[in-house]
């Protein structure tokens, strides 16, 4: 059964230095509040797994939490580069970052294999590309019936998966909807899990066949209103595209990034205070 906790307690209890951790959410429902709390609690040497590192991993990497990144598309969506990721890969700042690079199909297959209790997943992928040259976790196998050549990737089995969802009930059953990405697979593939939610309600009122994570497969549920900002929560608030664009300027240079990090993340108590500090900075900018 999931325990309903404050986010800082959940990160304290469930995320350890050196963990392999997946903070998932495909554009939608990205668990930014949890990412910030990991930065605040100064976790180190994490292996970060995520299809699209997005701003959330740019922040974790720039803050020095990561030793390795497993990913398939590392840009600022619709804007450009992730400069903290690039600085770590190209210049080893603030520390060297090992990368294990996949395509989306391979990452999705690896999460699904993890959720399925299989050691590996099979896909019609990677054929002809240079990716297998640089990633020993991409192999090729033969179909035992037709002899066709297919790609194989080992299952993702994160120590911890963190996702954000719209709702949980008081027993810790979780409901999400809209673009649901690989969140369910990432939670089911993980040894431990944290779900931040917009709200905790008396009754989920989940429509038939919706994406529900029953309480007993979730570790901790943490209410964090707005916890996916600047990504979005369908039915609650839209994606803050302006912030995604603004991040380009904040993250381009180490100095501006560090000032932003110190002021808005390290200098705030929690995600509510972070958002207030961001608002104040905008008002008086």
């Amino acid at each position, binding site marked *: 059964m999931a325990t309903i906790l404050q986010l800082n307690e959940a990160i304290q209890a469930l995320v350890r230095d050196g963990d392999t951790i997946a903070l998932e959410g*495909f554009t*939608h429902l990205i668990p930014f509040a949890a990412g910030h709390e990991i930065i605040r609690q100064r976790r180190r040497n994490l292996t970060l797994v995520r299809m699209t590192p997005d701003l959330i991993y740019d922040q974790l990497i720039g803050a020095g939490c990561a030793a390795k990144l497993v990913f398939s598309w590392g840009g600022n969506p619709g804007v450009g580069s992730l400069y903290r990721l690039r600085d770590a890969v190209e210049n080893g700042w603030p520390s060297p970052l090992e990368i294990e*690079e996949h395509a989306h199909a391979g990452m999705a297959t690896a999460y699904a294999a993890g959720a399925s209790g299989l050691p590996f997943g099979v896909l019609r992928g990677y054929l002809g590309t240079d990716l297998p*040259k640089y990633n020993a976790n991409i192999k090729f196998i033969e179909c035992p019936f037709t002899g066709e050549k297919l790609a194989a990737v080992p299952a993702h089995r994160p120590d911890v998966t963190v996702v954000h969802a719209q709702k949980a009930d008081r027993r810790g059953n979780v409901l999400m909807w809209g673009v649901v990405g690989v969140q369910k697979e990432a939670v089911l593939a993980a040894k431990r899990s944290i779900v931040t939610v917009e709200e905790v309600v008396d009754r989920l009122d989940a429509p038939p066949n919706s994406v529900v994570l029953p309480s007993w497969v979730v570790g901790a549920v943490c209410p964090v209103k707005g916890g996916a900002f600047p990504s*979005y929560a369908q039915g609650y608030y839209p994606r803050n595209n302006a912030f995604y664009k603004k991040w380009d300027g904040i993250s381009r240079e180490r100095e501006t990034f560090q000032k932003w990090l110190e002021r808005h993340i390290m200098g705030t108590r929690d995600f509510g205070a972070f958002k207030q500090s961001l608002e104040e900075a905008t008002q008086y900018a």
Partner: protein
Amino acid sequence: MPEASYSADEMMTIAAARMIRNGASLFVGIGLPSAAANLARLTHAPETVLIYESGTIGTRPSVLPLSIGDGELAETADAVVSVPEMFAYWLQGGRIDLGFLGAAQIDRFANINTTVIGEYRKPSTRLPGAGGAPEIATCCKEVLITLRHSKRAFVNKLDFLTSSGHMEGGDSRERMQLPGKGPTAVITDLGVLTPDPVTRELTLTSVHPGVTAEKVVENTGWPLKVAPVVETLAPPSENELRVLRELNERTRRAHTEQV
């Protein structure tokens, strides 16, 4: 309409949009492919089924999404599926007529690079990487590629092969048993290249109004083959241009709300 009344990028988008058959299912990347696909849907191809890798099927956004998973894509979709399902049942399942990709580098056989410029382990520029592209390039029945024409982009040798086109040309793609038939056109801001039916080498077959074949050759990093007769595409119609500009303007406004 006078010639200077549209940009090369607009012409590129419109030329790409015209290649989309009404009713086709389209797997769409962000940026130029998304603009062209939505322009097609808003003009001659209203029955086009737009599919984004975020899991949205048959979506009808009123503005271009900034990300591949914007909320409006889900709200206006016929169906929203998980990402593993999208890649397994829909893309790998061989259901998509047309994949639509951008690229940082392309070679003469329409193989593309979106991973790194320079050495992989010591890149001069680290690009975003593969995303959905490798499997879009192999599993869609057909692939269109759009990018701006320059010697930096149209290179003799890719720094990294991210997504398979026609491999080393000839029947090398078939021998590798890639399921789809691969890139059938590359649409740039100068014209359109199509693979030679036998050698699969990209060949200049049409140019945009006012562009010469020589200019395209000059901006290509290998000795570009030119078709015996190079067609000149029709300039944008008033309607194409109006719809595209309205779409871009709506998009600009929607993506600049205050933080």
